[in-house]
């Protein structure tokens, strides 16, 4: 089985990769990628099935917090039921989106404001080094540069320093990180294509 899975991974990878460079393989690449689209959608459903089964098990076993699991399963079943009947873009489903999903996610994101600020304040208490100081100073500078005064941009900071820091200074580091990420992705991808890494379960 491991040989088969490795062969599948390598073959699909080579064909898809060949589509980038050889026009003759573009059709095969398109076909394989369209299959991948479908399989990825099915994988999402499998993930939801797994989530459901986990919480159903908790309910069956009567574990602590099973009442919450029951709420989760009820919400899931009801939303899925109405979503299948009415389709996701229906107004009722829009109400669900605007009434539950968006408020909860946005509120959680809003709470992050406090946490981030708290972390920034406490940073130098635990770590008073150059990296921490530069980090905090940059953040504070950009806080200040992003705001305005009643009469306009904050002089120098809003008009000169902030753009220079965010577009030049930060750019160098960001580009270095991006290139590093690309190199890492390249290495990882090649390891998968050469079956050195088999994250699909082939050890």
């Amino acid at each position, binding site marked *: 089985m491991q040989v088969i899975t490795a062969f599948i991974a390598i073959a699909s*990878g080579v064909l898809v990769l060949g589509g980038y460079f050889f026009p003759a393989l573009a059709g095969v690449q398109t076909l394989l990628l369209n*299959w991948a689209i479908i399989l990825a959608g099915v994988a999402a459903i499998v993930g939801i099935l797994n989530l459901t089964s986990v919480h159903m098990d908790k309910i069956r076993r009567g574990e602590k917090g099973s009442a919450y699991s029951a709420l989760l399963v009820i919400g899931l079943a009801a939303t899925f039921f109405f979503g299948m009947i009415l389709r996701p873009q229906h107004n009722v489903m829009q109400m669900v989106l605007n009434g539950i999903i968006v408020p909860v996610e946005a509120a959680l994101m*809003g709470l992050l404001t406090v946490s981030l600020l708290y972390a920034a304040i406490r940073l130098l208490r635990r770590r008073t080094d150059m990296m921490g100081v530069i980090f905090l*100073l940059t953040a504070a500078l950009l806080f200040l540069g992003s705001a305005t005064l009643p009469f306009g941009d904050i002089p120098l900071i809003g008009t000169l320093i902030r753009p220079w820091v965010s577009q030049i200074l930060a750019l160098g*580091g960001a580009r270095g990180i991006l290139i*590093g990420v690309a190199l890492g992705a390249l290495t990882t991808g090649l390891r998968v294509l050469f079956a050195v890494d088999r994250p*699909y379960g082939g050890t």
Partner: protein
Amino acid sequence: MIFPPDLITGVISFIFTILIFSYLIGDNPLFRIAVYIFVGVSAGYVAAIALWQVIVPRLIYPLVFGSMNEKIFAAIPLLGSLFILLKVSSRMAGVARMTMAFLVGAGAAVIVAGAVMGTLIPQVGATINFFDLNAAVAVGISKGEAFGNGLVVLFGTIFSLVYFHFGASPKADGSMHRFGLIEIAAWVGRIFIGITLGAVFAGVYAAALTALIERIASIINFFANLFGNF
């Protein structure tokens, strides 16, 4: 009395916002109720979307209404989908590996090609092009400014990359240290990375603050609409 949909949405939205904000006093049942319901609703929503916008149009339609070729081509992902569904069963999970191997292999190829063609080559080229003074003048940047900026970006890029080089050799006392020049470059690289992460931090805070503003604004709107309607 018939409540308008906006009012119902507003009420629900307000309730859930308050429930989430209750986390400030600590993890409590109200917060948990909101989170569990949210997870369930989101999962149900995603499942419905996956079925209506992936399975039905891309798998069911070709199999039912498609031509013979489309049916044949749809049969293969159908088989792969069945394999993935077997992942639910621990006994048959091994079969799903074939489908996962296909996804991983294709994904690896896409990542490799994208990284090389979309990031590595263009970004390296852009770092070099920063010293194209004529091009800078064409967009209204002076040559000195362009040269200085290019130098900063070049050093920032190189030093940041060096910072992620963790190769070291043992010293006489047994300690591990990087090569001297690399150590210096990495030290400079830390500055650039610190600045970049500070900028990211500021951006995250800005995004969170905007979200908080949006939530508070929605509460205000809800009460405005509520008292306006009554």
